[in-house]
């Protein structure tokens, strides 16, 4: 009975949504308003204006950089949320299921992970730094960075990671995302321009391109390092179990 009502209500909602979807302009056509209004400028001038061949990166970091600042703040908020609910790990009081497991981890896995992790981190750095030119960017690279820490933890145990990545440094790195934006954005502000402006004509006009690259790089690294550390911290907070 209750299910029937829910299904009926949901069906009505479906009809509502479908009626909206049907009335939308046809998908995939270049004449759509979504494509013809502001996109042409992005595609035509984006490389020049935003300083990135990857237009998406240009939009994320430059045209809509403020959104991305909000986005990295959302990740930070998520970490703070996890910490608020579960609390930080502490080696004195916590251990993890990996450490408590009675099954010996295979040598093969250990060896492979030991070998691979440096390359994974290198790959992550490549993705972070190369975001302006090819698919990738801070978020993707950060996720890979975080994944490498998770792989390490799963094979070598909780305590190793916690010791190798001490809380003191992680606390700083976690906030790197918003801080990167702040550092890059506030320079424009001091020069009398709007927040998050990367082109500052009043300072060294000849090196504009370089300055912009540098600032975007700071942001990318901030996002990547921040994202990676946050993923690692979230994982550690969730993985921990209390010692008896």
């Amino acid at each position, binding site marked *: 009975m209750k299910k029937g009502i829910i299904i009926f209500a949901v069906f009505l909602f479906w009809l*509502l*949504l479908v*009626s*909206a*979807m*049907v*009335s*939308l*302009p046809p998908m995939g056509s270049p004449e*759509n*308003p*979504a*494509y*013809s*209004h*502001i*996109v042409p*400028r*992005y595609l035509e001038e984006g490389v020049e204006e935003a300083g990135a061949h990857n237009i998406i990166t240009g939009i994320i970091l*430059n*045209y*809509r*950089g*403020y*959104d991305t*600042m*909000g*986005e990295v*703040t*959302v990740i*930070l*908020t*998520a970490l*703070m*949320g*996890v910490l*608020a*609910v579960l*609390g*930080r790990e502490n080696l004195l009081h916590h251990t993890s299921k990996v450490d408590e497991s009675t099954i010996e981890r295979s040598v093969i896995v250990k060896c492979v992970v030991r070998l691979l992790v440096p390359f994974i981190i290198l790959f992550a750095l490549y993705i972070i730094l190369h975001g302006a030119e090819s698919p990738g960017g801070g978020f993707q690279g950060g996720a890979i960075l975080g994944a490498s820490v998770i792989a390490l933890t799963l094979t070598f145990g909780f305590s190793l990671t916690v010791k190798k990545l001490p809380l*003191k440094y992680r*606390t*700083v790195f*976690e*906030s790197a*995302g*918003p*801080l990167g934006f*702040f550092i890059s*954005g506030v320079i*424009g*502000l001091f020069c*009398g*321009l*709007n*927040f*998050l*402006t*990367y*082109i500052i004509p009043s300072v060294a006009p000849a090196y504009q391109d370089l300055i912009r690259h540098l600032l975007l790089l700071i942001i990318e690294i901030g996002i990547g390092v921040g994202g990676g550390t946050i993923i690692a911290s979230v994982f550690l907070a969730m993985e921990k179990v209390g010692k008896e």
Partner: protein
Amino acid sequence: MIEFSQHCPVLMTITLIIGGALTPIVSISRKKFSFWWAFFVSLLAFFFCSCAVWRLYTMGPISYWLSGWEPPYGIEVYFDYVSTITFLMTALGILVIVYSKRYILHDISEEKLPTYYTLVLLILGGMVGFSVTGDMFNLYVFLEILSLSGYALIAITEEKLNAMASFKYLVMGSVSSVSVLLGVALLYNVTGTLNMADIALRLQQFGPTTAVYVALVLFIIGFSVKAALFPVHAWLPDAHALAPSPVSALLSGLVIKIGIVGMLRVLYCVYKLGGPVDFTSVTNFMGWLAAVTVLVGAFFAFFQDDIKMIFAYSSISNIGYILMGISLVSFTQPERGYLGMMGGLVHVFNHAIIKSTLFLCAGALIYKTGFRKLSDLRGIGKKMPITCGVLTIAALSIAGIPPTAGFICKWYIILGTIEFGKPIFAVALLLGAMLVFAYYIKIINALFFREPNESITEVDEAPLSMLVPIIILAIGCLVMGIFAYLPLAVIRPAAATMLGLPSTYLPLGG
């Protein structure tokens, strides 16, 4: 100064956000230092906000282009008259942070202090950013920042029921956020832009399609959940009652108002009265729901014994007032909706002040006695006269007794309903107010006029850092009522511009 104040809307947002992000770093070695840092950051944000408000009322709305890209290519921050609510947010933020200094250690361990203050600053930053943005997607991003910090702040204590309340809020809140996102996506698909002003322009150009209507419905559903309108209010009582008291004050005072601000933005800045979409059938329906909300909230509050639960239900009732006020609009004659709009908007401010006073007072009582049930708190008024006296002022205020702040909204909404030709709403409002007063008098009776509870011994007045915020807020309750022309002068242009009238519009009684 002019040059500087131009930047203020965005400065206050980033101050709060970056301040929040820095909190764990500055308090690595001394956890308690996070309080002073948060206090400093909130003061700074308040300063920026004051500058922005000053500029707004001397030179008109501020349109700020992030990264220097002109809209619709970049993101626009638009500080208009509705954004004056940020003034309240930052001011209340300072008070809540000061209040937390002593209180919060009652609920959480010292370990979690930086986390707590980070979340408070982030929720403030999210709300401020939400209220000043002129971009639909940016609206969604800030909505998520504040929602996520809200969920986390509820669950920060170790109490058993908090995680459940938070989860309930999270599920409903996420569904509502996603429905807002789908609305944004639909509008983007139809118009090809994300800037609010540009969407409004291009909607005019393309005319309404089904998708535009459906997007409106999705927005209304999404923001109704955030504001706890009647059929989707179920998350509110648990979440607001179980959270630590300063958090309850923030949630009940400000966060539910985000739903209102969102509706104002969508209805009156994007769809616009006199625009392509006649949304008055939706607002009419919303008005009826609001009337029901007023009664439902007031009715359920009557059966609660937990003091914070009562306040939480009364928040539902008061959201009903606000929504009733802002939904009394006529599509073709915008000036007919003016008085109701004034009532709704002024109550956004007044309810924030009053409800946070109530929650902070309740927190002081809980902090000192450890009890939260009315039947246990009986007779405490003789031991904590200042806290209970302030609570009484706030209770009278929320019941709409003149000359306190809560009365103004009653007056305006009743005028609005008469002007609009729907006196039945006024009946719901007055009935709701009567019920509200009935249970607040129950509280006052219990606090002052009943035999003291013997198990409460050696209880004295709350510490100074808790008393100062609640006394300031109580003075606010009285001043906003007696010198009502001050808040009204601030809100008048907001109500007028929402309805598409000139900001100096002033009918008789406005």
